[in-house]
């Protein structure tokens, strides 16, 4: 690319001109910042100001633009220049809006601005304009794992969008669980009666669709590659194996029913007349509209009791802690089987909370009552067998009395358990290390102790399958970005992601297909996936410097990095989310991005003008997550809250990208205090890169040694979890550190 040419533009609008000596800022940009061009403008973001900059880019060959104006979050539509690197020195939200407008503070406020210009110029010197590596290919085929309703829907929706799908099903037939249903919960108004599941139709569509290739009795032997260039060895029944190439993966591996034999209190297994919901579906399929017969003696069922939440919503060992969501509606549907075959059949549902949410749900509940299904709020205790009949013992919570009720058939509404494969974060090795945790999980009933076999068999450094939540479902951001798993280009859909009914599973499949074709398009252009969508930068490493310590491969939250046989990292660019956690992890600092590196930040830290020990002008460095902490600081400015003029703030992609060298360098170059601001970590993590904040906290917990060797007070370095709404808190944190510094005194390391 052309030689680097830096130009700095200082805005005088929004009061910057009155509050700051902009001429001095321009001077600094030129003299210290080595900017070839440094201009001031009374209103940089208006058409004329923007044109001025564009002209310099077009005619003067400017490659790096430094804007001394408002926050990088403001006026983005105006400052939208192509093919250049843009630095934003935040003089408005970050300087004049957080400082009092009076003479006493004029000097320190100006110093803030001076430094931000120095920092922006320093950054400019060390960033390049990222370009795609062209490492990845374009393959408009999606592999769908699982041939149930979710998988088939995903394949069909993908095909409908003009892409190809490979459907891999481990059994001998398509249809999955839905094929075992007599009828399904109605999916549209008036929600009054069980509906055809539509599975047969789906299967027919799949088989007749020439964009879809189906492999039955097939499993994934080995899955490798990255979005745009995945490859899988598929083993079929014969034992033969062949390889398929594809651009993205949808994991629709579905669920398995909870093993009702774990509920001896309900006599499951002791008599055929106690069934789970799938068992009842089998009976209904057999009866096919005629009155349902009782398995033990073939007599018509005159009375049936449905026990909700069997082995669910319970913290007993071996039970499921969560609610499977569909079971209330399913019981209503199944009770309708009986009522519609013979209205005189007594069908009763014993529940603690009847959960039929949404518009259709409540209609279905009401229609169930209309058809004569009775509902009893109660806690089922036991089911016992006496001379061929069943007695259900339950507590009626409304009449507040214990009841023994005789009935012909009992249906247990047991839960869904995800087929999410191997729990890679609870590998045997790990179990040995901290057995407490996993056994706690088991005690809490969060995970049922079942030996899983891998679904994807990923050839990834970090394990065979996707990371799981404590409940065993696949991990994702869940609320705002439900499809963002921790493996780029692999999207889960259906009950493997969260318990759900068929309607939701089909919606979910459609959404996953959306993400799959999207990642195919973007990866082919070298564009990053969520959340840094469109980012062209990617991690590179200096092999000669690498010590094969494997920290980058271990710590990457997205399993993007493999190791070659000598243990050197292999960055799979399109698996990478560009968070920089690897860069933060590297002890020898050989990992960098074109526009984000140890230097691009480190040099900003060094660029700050450091007053001497006796100046009474300490310097506090803030490394702030650009996703939450930095916006919070911005809004503090918008709210005109004030904080110390001694602070210098640098936004980082994620706290996970913070390399401890920045901290030690800062301390060595005389900073008096350092604050790291990241997102919430832990089970309810808010970090957009899942593990970044957590890793940063771990790394910083070890910084104390550095401090003691420098014999500085530990209080000088603090790491905080900050939320984007903390606009009142962040100034406080800064001012607290200013106070701490005052208490500890100035750092002796100012040279």
């Amino acid at each position, binding site marked *: 690319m052309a030689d680097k040419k830096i130009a700095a533009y200082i805005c005088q609008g*929004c009061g910057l001109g009155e509050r700051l000596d902009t001429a001095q800022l321009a001077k600094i940009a030129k003299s210290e910042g080595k900017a070839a061009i440094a201009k001031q403008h009374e*209103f940089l*973001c*208006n058409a004329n100001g923007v044109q001025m900059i564009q002209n310099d880019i077009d005619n003067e060959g400017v490659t790096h633009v430094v804007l001394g104006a408002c926050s990088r*979050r*403001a006026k*983005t*539509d105006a400052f939208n220049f192509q093919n250049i690197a843009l630095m934003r020195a935040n003089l408005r939200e970050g300087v004049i809006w957080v400082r009092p407008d009076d003479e006493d503070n004029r000097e320190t406020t100006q110093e803030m601005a001076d430094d931000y210009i120095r920092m922006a110029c320093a950054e400019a010197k060390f960033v390049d304009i990222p370009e795609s590596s062209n490492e990845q290919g374009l393959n408009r085929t999606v592999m769908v794992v699982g041939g149930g309703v979710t998988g088939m829907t995903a394949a069909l*929706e993908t095909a409908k*969008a003009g892409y190809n799908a490979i459907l891999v099903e481990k059994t001998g037939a398509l249809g999955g669980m839905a094929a075992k249903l007599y009828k399904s919960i109605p*999916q*549209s108004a008036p929600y009054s009666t069980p509906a055809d599941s539509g599975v047969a139709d789906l299967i027919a569509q799949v088989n007749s669709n020439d964009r879809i290739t189906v492999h039955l009795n097939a499993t994934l032997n080995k899955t490798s590659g990255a979005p745009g260039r995945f490859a899988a060895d598929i083993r079929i029944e014969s034992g033969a194996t062949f390889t398929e190439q594809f651009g993205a993966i949808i994991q629709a591996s579905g669920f398995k029913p909870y093993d009702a034999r774990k509920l001896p209190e309900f006599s499951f297994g002791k008599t055929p007349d106690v069934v789970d919901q799938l068992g009842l579906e089998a009976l209904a399929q057999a009866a096919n509209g005629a009155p349902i017969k009782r398995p033990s003696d073939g007599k018509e069922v005159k009375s049936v009791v449905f026990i909700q939440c069997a082995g669910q919503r319970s*913290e007993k060992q071996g039970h499921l802690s*969560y*609610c*499977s*969501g569909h079971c209330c509606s399913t019981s209503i549907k199944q009770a309708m089987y009986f009522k519609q075959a013979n209205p005189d059949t007594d069908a009763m549902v014993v529940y603690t909370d009847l*959960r*039929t*949410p*949404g*518009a*259709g*749900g*409540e209609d279905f509940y*009401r229609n169930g009552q209309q058809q004569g299904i009775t509902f009893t709020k109660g806690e089922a205790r036991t089911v016992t067998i006496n001379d061929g009949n069943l007695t259900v013992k339950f507590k009626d*919570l*409304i009449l*507040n009395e214990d009841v023994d009720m005789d009935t012909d058939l009992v249906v247990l509404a047991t839960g869904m358990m995800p087929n999410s494969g191997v729990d890679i974060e609870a590998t045997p090795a790990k179990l040995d290390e901290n057995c407490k945790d996993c056994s706690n999980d088991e005690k809490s009933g969060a995970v049922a102790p079942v030996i899983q076999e891998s679904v994807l068999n990923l050839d990834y450094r970090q394990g065979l399958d996707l990371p799981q*939540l404590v*409940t065993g479902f696949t991990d994702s951001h869940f*609320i*705002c*970005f*439900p499809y963002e798993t921790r493996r780029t280009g692999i999207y889960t859909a259906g009950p493997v992601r*969260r318990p*759900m009914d068929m309607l939701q599973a089909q*919606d*979910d499949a*459609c*959404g996953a*297909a*959306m993400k799959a074709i*999207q990642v195919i*398009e*973007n990866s082919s252009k070298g564009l990053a996936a969520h*959340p840094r*969508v*469109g980012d062209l930068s990617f991690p590179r490493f200096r092999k000669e410097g690498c010590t094969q310590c494997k920290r980058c491969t271990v710590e990457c939250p997205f399993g993007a990095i493999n190791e070659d046989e000598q243990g050197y990292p292999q960055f799979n660019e399109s698996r990478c989310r560009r968070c920089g956690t690897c860069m933060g992890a590297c002890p020898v600092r050989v990992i960098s991005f074109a526009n984000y590196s140890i230097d691009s930040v480190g040099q900003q830290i060094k660029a700050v003008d450091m007053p001497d020990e006796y100046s009474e002008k300490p310097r506090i460095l803030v490394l702030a997550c650009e*996703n*939450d902490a930095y916006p919070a600081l911005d*809004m503090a400015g918008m*709210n005109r809250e004030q904080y110390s003029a001694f602070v210098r703030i640098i936004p980082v992609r994620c706290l996970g990208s913070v390399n401890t060298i920045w901290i030690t360098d800062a301390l060595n170059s005389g900073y008096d205090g350092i604050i790291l601001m990241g997102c*919430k970590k832990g089970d*309810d993590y*808010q970090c*957009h890169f899942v593990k970044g904040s957590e890793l940063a906290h771990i790394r910083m917990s070890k910084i104390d040694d550095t401090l003691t060797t420098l014999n500085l007070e530990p209080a000088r370095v603090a790491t905080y979890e900050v939320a*984007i*709404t903390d*606009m009142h808190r962040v100034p406080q944190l800064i001012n607290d550190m200013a106070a701490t510094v005052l208490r500890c005194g100035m750092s002796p390391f100012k040279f």
Partner: protein
Amino acid sequence: MTEVVATNQTILVVGGGISGMTAALEAAECGKQVILLEKNPSLGGRVSQLYKYFPKLCMPTCGMEINLRRIKANPNVRVLTLAEVTQVSGTTGNYQVKVKLSPRYVNSNCTACGACADAVTAEFPNEYNYGLNNRKGAYLPFFMAYPQRYVLDPKIIGTADADKAQAACHCGAIDLDMQTEEMDLQIGSIIWATGWQPFDADKIQPYGHDRFANVITSVEMERMMDPMGPTGGRLVRPSDGQEAKNVAFIQCAGSRDRNYLKHCSRICCMATLKQTTYLREQFGDAGRATVYYIDIRAIDRFENFYQKVMKDDNIKFIKSKVANVIENKENNNPILRGVNTEGYHRYADEYDLVVLAVGMQPSVDFKSLGIDIVVNDNGFIEQNPHNGGMFAAGCASDALDVNRAVQNATASSLRAIQVINQVAGAEG
């Protein structure tokens, strides 16, 4: 005149809440041309008015920041605010859409410096805070507002305030001559992400929201908790500004009730469970909550959240639809009257504050708008082949929590792309 180029390969997303933003972005990040319409002055929708999300208790603006950054970075999305669809004609892959653009009286020069707001005096009920406080006639709806541009309330146009605002602006951003514009768009596929509105609590007469100061709604409570909200993040009694430490929550306020909304709004149980944690967050051991419910509908992993809340001794659950609320005339305390159906305990419980967990109803009445789309009798759009190239996203399709709304919006995005790709295929 606003210039917007659209073709029958353009996707129109109506509604700029979390569902609309998601639908628009997923398509745009797949290389499609998208127009995102929002009737309010800024994007964000209902979630931007929430303090926290369940079950993670994280901040809605956190995800919104990411989505806004995605929008800022993506040339494929064009955002039109203060925009409403007035008419739709045509068919799949070839819709003609009439759009009405209301004047903002502030142009793209605005730097959000706030000088205009400082200059004006007249105040109006703040719709962003459900009228719990006032805002100026020149205002930025909220700090995260995008476009980050001030708005002039039409009510000040022609008044002295309008001129004051214009005089105060150094950026030439205020244009008092802006007029309402009509716009015709050629569109391939339409995604209705028109969202929901809280059920009007005044209609639930037995609970006296219209008569008693200390009976508020769940959405009002969210605004109170927001550090930038009308009470600066303090949960207080509207009657006297005292801290509300002992709070009752009434579930199904309007929902599951044939006198009001016959459907279950799905989110209210979790919203209340979430809000009980606000009391502990704000008042520690002094915070107490009592939840009056019919069924607690905390499905899937939400159940774990419910279990956690149930372990808190300061939070009580009473299975009872409250019969009515009366007011203690001495201290304006609301008194809840009813029967605990588990064991028949008659109660008349007095609290500092009552929160009505109000239900969700669709924001748009598609029938009256004359849009030819299949709507169920709860007013939600049903998936139906008859809808052609029009799809619902989020709460236009059902009462959904954010997670499900985003899931549904992503799906709708693909459905729209399928239409566009077929059009493209046909056009070669």
